[in-house]
């Protein structure tokens, strides 16, 4: 391509658009600058209020914490502007006069959630709990408790038009909005819960910094966590997700996380709420230590300076769309270990060296009980015994599964190579069904793309994932597509022929068949078009699969089941193809074994390949559908697997019956018109059509007249392949009836060749060597 000035300018423009995304904090306008400025100011005042906070004093002007439950009980429409008259800011007790939860909830937390007392340090909790826990969640009540009014500052709102430079001041209450809807409620009574804990040990110290810095000086007792909680109803119609920070007290196994948004700055509330359920003396210690943790996080990460527009917008969206949730988790102690053993286990998981850690017996991270309470929506939920294995262990087991998968791919490549060796001539490839391999190829190609995508998402598993992707990619795009190309090339003659014609093997009339373009595309053009098709279907299907993962459960399962079922019907096209080709029964094949064309009558697919491929492709499905703790947490459905296996067995049984009884046994005799037969007597008229044949007939006649020996009487034509004479059986000449009609072949276009010559030719190309007319395979 020649690059002139215009193209260059265009490229520069495109590159400029690419690279000119707002850097740093993402501010792109005066309005946003002011928004960030106001946000920073708000947080700074709140942080200074937080610094002055003691275990025995109340929150002052901190967003979302200005009212207590009791304030709202007394006056449901109270204005939350600080300071509120008659509110006691100088004292703190863990009851509803100070907290934003009712006494009943506080009682429940103390009695049945955070109920493990750890007086003599008897219980030992795992210090590192990176994991994904799964379980069920129950709704306790969604209308019993009063809703805390949480004002939302107006400056969070996005600009209304371009000339808008100053964000609006003041506050608003979302409860007063008109379209304030059901999203602020939990309507199901029983649902599924997923909790993901990740440790936050290191933080970036500025927006540009690449390096992260440790901040926690109380690392042996306190951990800062990133907590992601999702809970949905069984059918995934209603989904609540929270992504926030939490703190973990290793000595007591208590985890507290509160959602964060523009109407609830929960980070500042963590110290007070962490001490809920503690005695007065413990309260002080817990408060001060957790406050120190928060302050260290705040200062090391330069919280104020690293704020971005994206964060501000998320805060605003969360405030408008979601309820705030406070989550209290109680971990199950790992009392079977002492601290040294726990350290060895953690080290080994983090940096495997072969320490004596016995990783196969590590228990799951378990939350024995948890309470989720929403102060602004008045919802209370609870859960028991949610559990999941450590992230590193999970990665290990996924790695093992991936290695098994690679082994399956290698086995499939080996089988395919054997199959390709088995059908190495166009004539035998012709009997293979194109669509059977299309289906197989589609699945392998999709796996390759999915592996590639996940390799970028899970850096821990990069190597095995890339190797899996590579193996499946080789299988799909090199071996299978190669095979597809040769199948397609051998069948290109039949592309515009009707099924009935194919079934009979007749080319209808010589005239009509001559009208068909005889230009057969060469292999290069076939391969380029097939590769194009392969890529497009692959991308479409992969997108469909990725997209389907976000569909509601009902649709997703329907899609999954039907896709699996359809893609596992891959032997049907081959059954169909066999019937078209009319492969004779095994006994018949054995009978004609001594003939030269024995090779062309074998079954197109090796049994080794059929059984092996079915096994390789069903094994993963069986694993995911029957083994309930499989790596993808796929639900268990043994019935589907049984049906699917029977379906596959049925297909194989039909293929086997075709092998034994002949490919057309299920079609009644008279539905199949007689196929084209190459072995037939020749009429004199036909011979006369050929110019060069006349001479031969003459010489034949001469031979008759010269030698009056009946056995030597022959009529011959020239075989265009070996250029020697072919004796033919002419109906009208009884002298020639000593010739075996199996010694020569007559093509539909009335050319005559030696049987051996034409059969050898037909294993390379199904075209008449003389006139290029398509030949029906015999």
């Amino acid at each position: 391509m020649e690059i002139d000035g215009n193209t260059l300018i265009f490229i520069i423009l495109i590159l400029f658009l690419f690279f000119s995304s707002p850097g740093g904090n993402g501010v792109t306008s005066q309005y946003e600058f002011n928004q960030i400025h106001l946000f920073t100011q708000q947080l700074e005042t709140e942080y200074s209020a937080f610094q002055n906070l003691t275990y025995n004093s109340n929150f002052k002007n901190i967003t979302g914490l200005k009212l207590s439950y009791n304030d709202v009980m007394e006056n449901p429409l109270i204005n939350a502007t600080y300071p509120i008259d008659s509110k006691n800011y100088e004292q703190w007790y863990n009851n509803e006069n100070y907290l934003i939860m009712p006494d009943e909830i506080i009682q429940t937390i103390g009695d049945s959630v955070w109920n493990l007392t750890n007086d003599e340090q008897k219980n030992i909790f795992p210090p590192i709990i990176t994991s994904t826990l799964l379980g069920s969640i129950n709704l306790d009540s969604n209308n019993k408790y009063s809703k805390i009014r949480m004002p939302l500052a107006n400056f969070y709102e996005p600009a209304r038009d371009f000339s808008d430079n100053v964000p609006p001041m003041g506050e608003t209450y979302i409860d007063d909005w008109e379209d304030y809807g059901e999203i602020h409620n939990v309507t199901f009574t029983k649902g599924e819960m997923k909790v993901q804990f990740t440790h936050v040990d290191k933080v970036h110290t500025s927006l540009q910094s690449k390096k992260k810095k440790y901040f926690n000086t109380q690392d042996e007792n306190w951990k800062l966590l990133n907590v992601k909680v999702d809970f949905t109803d069984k059918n995934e119609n209603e989904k609540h997700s929270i992504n926030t920070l939490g703190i973990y007290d290793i000595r007591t196994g208590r985890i507290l996380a509160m959602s964060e948004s523009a109407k609830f700055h929960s980070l500042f509330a963590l110290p007070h709420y962490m001490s809920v359920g503690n005695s007065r003396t413990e309260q002080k210690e817990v408060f001060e230590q957790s406050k120190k943790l928060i302050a260290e996080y705040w200062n090391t990460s330069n919280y104020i300076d690293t704020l971005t527009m994206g964060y501000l917008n998320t805060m605003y969206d969360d405030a408008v769309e979601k309820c705030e949730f406070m989550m209290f988790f109680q971990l199950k102690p790992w009392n079977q270990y002492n601290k040294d053993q726990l350290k060895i286990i953690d080290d080994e998981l983090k940096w495997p060296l072969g320490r004596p850690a016995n990783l196969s017996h590590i228990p799951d991270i378990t939350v024995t009980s948890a309470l989720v309470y929403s102060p602004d929506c008045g919802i209370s939920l609870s859960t028991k015994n949610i559990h999941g294995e450590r992230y590193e262990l999970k990665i290990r087991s996924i790695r093992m599964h991936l290695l098994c998968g690679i082994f399956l791919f290698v086995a499939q490549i080996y089988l395919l190579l054997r199959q390709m060796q088995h059908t190495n001539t166009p004539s035998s490839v012709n009997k293979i069904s194109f669509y059977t391999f299309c289906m197989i190829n589609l699945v392998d190609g999709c796996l390759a793309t999915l592996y590639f995508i996940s390799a970028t998402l899970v850096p821990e598993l990069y190597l095995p994932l890339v190797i899996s992707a590579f193996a499946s990619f080789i299988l799909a795009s090199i071996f299978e597509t190669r095979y597809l190309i040769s199948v397609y090339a051998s069948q290109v003659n039949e592309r515009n022929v009707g099924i009935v014609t194919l079934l009979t093997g007749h080319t209808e009339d010589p005239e009509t068949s001559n009208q068909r373009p005889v230009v057969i595309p060469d292999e290069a053009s076939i391969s380029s078009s097939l590769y194009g098709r392969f890529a497009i279907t692959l991308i479409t299907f992969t997108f469909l699969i990725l997209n389907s993962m976000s569909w509601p459960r009902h649709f997703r399962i329907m899609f999954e089941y039907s896709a699996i079922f359809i893609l596992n019907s891959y032997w049907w096209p081959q059954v169909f193809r066999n019937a078209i080709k009319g492969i004779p029964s095994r006994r018949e094949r054995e009978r004609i074994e001594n003939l030269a064309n024995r090779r062309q009558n074998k079954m197109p697919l090796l049994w080794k390949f059929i059984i092996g491929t079915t096994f390789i492709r069903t094994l993963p499905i069986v694993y995911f559908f029957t083994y309930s703790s499989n790596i993808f947490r796929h639900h268990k459905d043994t019935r589907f697997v049984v049906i699917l296996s029977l379906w596959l067995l049925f297909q194989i049984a039909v293929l086997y019956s075709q092998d034994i009884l002949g490919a057309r046994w299920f079609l009644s005799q008279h539905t199949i018109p007689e196929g084209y037969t190459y072995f037939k007597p020749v009429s004199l008229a036909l011979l006369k059509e050929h110019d060069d044949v006349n001479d031969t007939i003459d010489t034949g006649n001469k031979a008759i007249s010269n030698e009056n020996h009946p056995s030597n009487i022959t009529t011959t034509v020239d075989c265009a392949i070996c250029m020697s004479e072919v004796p033919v059986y002419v109906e009208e000449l009884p002298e020639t009836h000593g010739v075996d009609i199996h010694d020569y072949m007559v093509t539909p276009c009335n050319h005559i060749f030696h049987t051996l010559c034409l059969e050898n030719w037909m294993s390379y190309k199904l075209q008449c060597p003389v006139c290029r007319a398509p030949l029906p395979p015999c």
Partner: protein
Amino acid sequence: MSVDNPTGLHNYPVTKTCMILTAVVPFLMAVTNDKYIFLAQYDPFINQYHQYYRFLIYQFCAVNESDVMLLLLLWYYYRHIERLFGSYKYINVILLTIIYTTGILSLLNIAVNILFPTMIWNKLATGTLPTVLALFHFYKQYTPQLYEVNLSLSRPWSGKSSNGSFRWTINNQVFLNITIALLILNQGLTGICCGLISWIIGIFMEKGLLPGVDNWRIPFLRHISHLDTPLSGGSHYRMAHAQQQTTEIDALNDIQAGNIHPDDEAPDEPERSLGVQFLDTFRR
């Protein structure tokens, strides 16, 4: 001057196996994330965890990828030894070297650590570094130098002692020497220490202080046809004689396969004396 061995690994089954193992084992171990079992350290693996197996297997996988590359290169250089010894003797020597180096290094390390508990020597080198260093002696011993080059640099450093120019003599084995140096430097003090001990082990083996090179043979491999060359004997005479035999057999095989006309391959020069034959082994 035709000094090179035929390139490629055709007819070098042992070298080929060694190279494949050197590359494939680390790769498989990386995929399964189990490379760490080849780390051999006295503390903590032996004295705390009692994982004695580490001192037996540490030679089978190089933990660093750069070591893998260097070892591959070195095994390729060492194909001269296979050509000289024959595959059967070569594999015996390799196995013997592995056994001696593994055993002696492990026992020495344990002994040193028991005698001097201050941890002066904690780690063993990973990969076949000890074996390669022991074979290095064999290589030097049996491969004559083909040529040497004098590099003379005038005033390399403009110091006061600039009366003479700096002279450096290198020979055709300089690349091998550099690779060996890189290999032992690549693992730091551990590599240097283990490498030197292994080199000494190689010398002892060749001199007969550590017995077995001449007469120890693995029994079950004898019947594997392509290793069963007559080259497995020790004496130079038999070696040279056999070399000629094998080339003749190879030539015959080729003729039978119809690849080469007999005239192309059969030597039309007069019979050479034994000394010439021996030297020719390295010349052509």
